[in-house]
């Protein structure tokens, strides 16, 4: 089937190319085609991650067909990559020089998550997941309304999970994009862009019922996004501007998910307001998935050379977001009608939500003198909610309980502003020193309440020099200080009700001191040797936050080398990187459950470090007067996730028990060897092997179980992320003309 599709696709392309050739007197035809075969050998079993975003066919592969026609007037390119595969891509490019340009791309992008997922549920219709009534009825009978005989019910469910059936977990994007430029006259161009992207398949999603019952299900994805842009550009020697409109529409065919409660067939109101016993509550749960939405952007950009060496640029855009999907009812649990008569209704028919985004930027670039340049700019970005107000009398918790808690839904709004100015001074022809200042503010509001304003001021200094042909250096240093207007009042303490954590801050708005340093040295001590070193640090200190994220630091060093000896090429790279976060919190005391403890003994701290080391290299050796090439390459990347958890003894928690295994420690290795033999200028053959290995060391994810009924009242898809080892042998013929 795949081969057939690839054949037809390629045939159409060839015929199209030939017909165009026939119309022209003297087209210059060039191109390349590659066909080959792979033998894919999974050393430790199949793993979806190996083919996460690609297909490696075990057998014949049409890797490439690329034909280019060029004449004095036009260029035509037709290109097919991986034809017939799940990651195939086709490109068509046509350019009538200076007049008309068209690019069309069609691309399939797989996203495979797991090959081993299982579920006891059946999809009755898109997004509706059901269990056999008999199982629900049996468990409801065992549990009654008060959760009696719980161990027996869990045993029955556990047994039922052993009969779970396989379910695919993976998505596929099909994306087509058309770009057209038409030069109406020399200074004026009309541009059109259109994209249509569908996304279909299944991915894992948590679908809880009650406070203790996690159910992992496949989420049905059937979405489509269409977007485009029409733009008119006018460009003269001293000015250029463009304006246009960019609409976008997202549609989701499955906008809600329904799933059965394994422990219950018939609906019932759970007796406790904030407690849940298996067997209480709803026979079904319902979740809202991504709603249809639209956006329309109107924009203008202009660049004006106001003086010989001074340019002013302005960008202005206005975007309208609208989301008017049908709203779901508060709950599908008929048992909650007694608590609130409207529980089975939506608060209003449709969402009626929206936002207006205004973006404006003005920048100035001026060469004040031959050696002094000034840059300055201002940017304004406002996200202004335009939703219709909505008040709700309460809500259903997990379709189990009704809570009378009237809320005026607090829609969001924020305004970002920034301005900057810097001077760049060219000291000698080869050295420039730049100093500048930047200020940013972020002001938030929610439900018309001011949530405070962040102001961040940054000073930065940069030096760029290339005093010798073989030496260049770039260095930048910046220091920032972010303040928050509400530090001592208002909503500054978050969550407001947690008075004990007086210094808890959300890190995206907390006061912060930040330092960044980048050093970049490039050397070419010989014509055939290039060396490059980069050192980078970014240190964030949330100095007023005694709880929450307190610091977040990044450090890295990297090195690249390239060496050429005659026809032989060598390269190597190395990078080491550390990401380190320090955070603190305090556990709820017992009892009461709803109050944060005043006792510092209940504090805990987590230091999470991700250390990554990446290295590799390769060589390309040429023999037999460049007819034979040996390519060898190797790359290895390892991240150690190191958690360090601490808490004082005698509190709750008592002394923390840190993990003995890594958190998200991963390792990825690729080694490849191939021989390329050129029979002549047109035909060459490559033969070789590549080895790829991936390992995951994570105390939770390495071996995801299906059945955790006993430990966590939860069950999962078993969609594990297993280690893999693949060896792929390949042979390929490449013909160019």
């Amino acid at each position: 089937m795949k081969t057939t599709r690839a054949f037809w696709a390629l045939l159409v392309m060839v015929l199209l190319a030939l017909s165009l050739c026939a119309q022209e007197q003297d087209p210059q035809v060039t191109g390349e085609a590659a066909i080959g075969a792979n033998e894919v050998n999974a050393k430790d079993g199949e793993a979806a991650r190996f083919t996460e975003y690609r297909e490696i066919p075990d057998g014949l592969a049409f890797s490439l067909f690329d034909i280019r026609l060029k004449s004095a007037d036009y260029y035509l390119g037709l290109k097919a990559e991986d034809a017939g595969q799940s990651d195939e891509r086709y490109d068509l490019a046509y350019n009538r020089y200076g007049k008309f340009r068209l690019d069309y791309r069609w691309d399939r992008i797989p996203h495979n998550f797991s090959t081993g997922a299982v579920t006891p549920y059946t999809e009755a219709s898109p997004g509706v997941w059901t269990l056999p009534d008999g199982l629900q009825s049996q468990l409801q009978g065992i549990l009654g309304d008060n959760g009696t005989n719980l161990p027996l019910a869990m045993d029955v469910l556990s047994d039922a999970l052993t009969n779970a059936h396989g379910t695919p977990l993976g998505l596929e994007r099909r994306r087509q994009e058309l770009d057209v430029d038409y030069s109406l006259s020399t200074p004026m161009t009309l541009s059109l862009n259109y994209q249509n992207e569908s996304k279909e398949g299944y991915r894992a999603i948590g679908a809880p019922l009650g406070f203790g019952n996690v159910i992992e299900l496949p989420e049905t994805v059937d979405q489509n996004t269409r977007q485009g842009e029409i733009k008119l550009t006018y460009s003269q020697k001293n000015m250029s501007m463009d304006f246009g409109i960019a609409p976008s529409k997202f549609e989701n065919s499955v906008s809600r998910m329904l799933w059965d409660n394994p422990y219950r067939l018939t609906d019932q109101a759970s007796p406790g307001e904030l407690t849940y016993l298996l067997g209480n509550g709803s026979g079904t749960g319902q979740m809202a998935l991504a709603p249809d939405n639209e956006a329309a952007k109107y924009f203008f950009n202009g660049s004006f050379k106001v003086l010989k060496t001074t340019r002013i640029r302005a960008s202005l855009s206005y975007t309208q977001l609208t989301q008017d999907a049908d709203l779901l009812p508060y709950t599908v649990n008929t048992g909650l009608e007694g608590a609130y008569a409207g529980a089975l209704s939506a608060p209003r028919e449709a969402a009626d939500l929206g936002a207006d985004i205004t973006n404006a930027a003005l920048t100035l670039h001026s060469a004040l003198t031959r050696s002094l340049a000034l840059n300055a700019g201002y940017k304004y970005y406002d996200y202004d909610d335009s939703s219709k107000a909505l008040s709700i009398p309460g809500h259903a918790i997990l379709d189990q309980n009704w809570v009378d808690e009237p809320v005026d839904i607090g829609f969001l709004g924020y305004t970002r502003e920034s301005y900057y100015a810097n001077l760049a001074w060219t000291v000698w022809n080869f050295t420039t020193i730049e100093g500048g200042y930047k200020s940013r503010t972020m002001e938030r509001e929610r439900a018309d309440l001011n949530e405070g304003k962040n102001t961040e001021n940054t000073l930065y200094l940069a030096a760029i020099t290339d005093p010798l042909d073989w030496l260049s250096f770039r260095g930048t240093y910046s220091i920032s200080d972010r303040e928050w207007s509400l530090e001592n009042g208002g909503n500054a303490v978050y969550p407001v009700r947690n008075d004990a954590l007086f210094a808890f801050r959300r890190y995206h708005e907390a006061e912060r001191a930040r330092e960044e340093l980048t050093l970049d040295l490039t050397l070419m001590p010989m014509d055939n040797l290039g060396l490059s070193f980069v050192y980078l640090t970014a240190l964030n200190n949330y100095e007023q936050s005694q709880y929450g994220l307190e610091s977040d630091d990044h450090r890295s060093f990297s090195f690249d080398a390239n060496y050429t000896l005659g026809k032989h090429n060598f390269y190597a790279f190395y990078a080491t990187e550390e990401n380190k976060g320090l955070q603190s919190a305090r556990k709820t005391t017992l009892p009461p459950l709803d109050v944060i403890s005043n006792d510092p003994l209940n504090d805990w701290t987590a230091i999470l470090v991700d250390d990554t080391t990446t290295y590799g290299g390769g060589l390309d050796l040429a023999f037999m007067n460049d007819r034979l090439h040996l390519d060898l390459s190797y790359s290895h990347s390892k991240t150690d996730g190191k958690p360090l958890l601490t808490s004082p003894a005698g509190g709750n928690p008592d002394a923390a028990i840190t993990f003995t295994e890594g958190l998200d420690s991963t390792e990825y290795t690729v080694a490849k060897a191939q021989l390329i033999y050129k029979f002549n200028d047109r035909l060459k053959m490559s033969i070789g092997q590549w080895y790829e290995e991936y390992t995951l060391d994570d105390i939770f994810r390495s071996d995801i179980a299906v059945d955790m009924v006993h430990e966590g009242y939860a069950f999962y898809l078993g969609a594990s992320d297993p280690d893999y080892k693949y060896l792929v042998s390949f042979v390929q013929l490449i013909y160019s003309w």
Partner: protein
Amino acid sequence: MTASSSADYIGIQECRGCHEDAAASYGASLHGQKGFTQKSDHACEACHGPGGDHAAAGGDASTITSFSKKTRSAGNAACLQCHEQGAVMHFAGGIHDARKVSCTDCHRIHHPGQGAELLKATDEIALCLTCHHTMRSDLMKASHHPMREGKMTCSDCHNPHGSTTDALVAGDSINDKCYECHAEKRGPFLWDHVPAREDCTHCHDPHGSNHQRLLNARVPYLCQRCHSEPRHPGTLYDASNVNTRAIYNRACLNCHATVHGSNHPSGQTFMR
């Protein structure tokens, strides 16, 4: 070669007399095609300036604009004569210009380069990595965008020629760029998650991560950087909690599945 008067344009045929290889490769490049004569019919001299003096002086290098002797800024200025529009509008004064990255660091002018962009390297990502080394590590991490598989490139998100948004993001904001491919996250939602609405990078590192879904840190600890409410958000999940739903598999997201925003009337804690 015929003698010409000062500041005269002499045409590519004259140039070819001495610079045969350069003229041939120019003719094969995108710049050498017919349509570009609409912008300038001076061919070589469109960038190098009138060659009359140069020819008259028998090829004296000091009488022609030679970019090997010019500063990077001067070289860029020659390109910007025609290209300072559209996506290149914000180049002058932008971060790459300020750091003295020249057009010819990435593009090949004389010789036919890669694709219509005349790039110097075989692929765009490799070109960017020549300076941005650390991104190589990110691209090799377990959770990544499909870049190493060739389905995305740097310029799908960044405009290397300049932008009014930080990090040369090719959009009015980071989120606006992300929504182009992730329109399902655009909403607005009945219940928006505040940091997600403001900036996707509060929680995600789009370049790559060893944590699932490009997250900046492992859940539940990532969530606990903001959430320390009573009961489970403030709980320490240590080695004694390995088999609890709050940390196993997707931790908090096992239940709070609609964390980007919920359109359910009862979705204020993103469980519906």
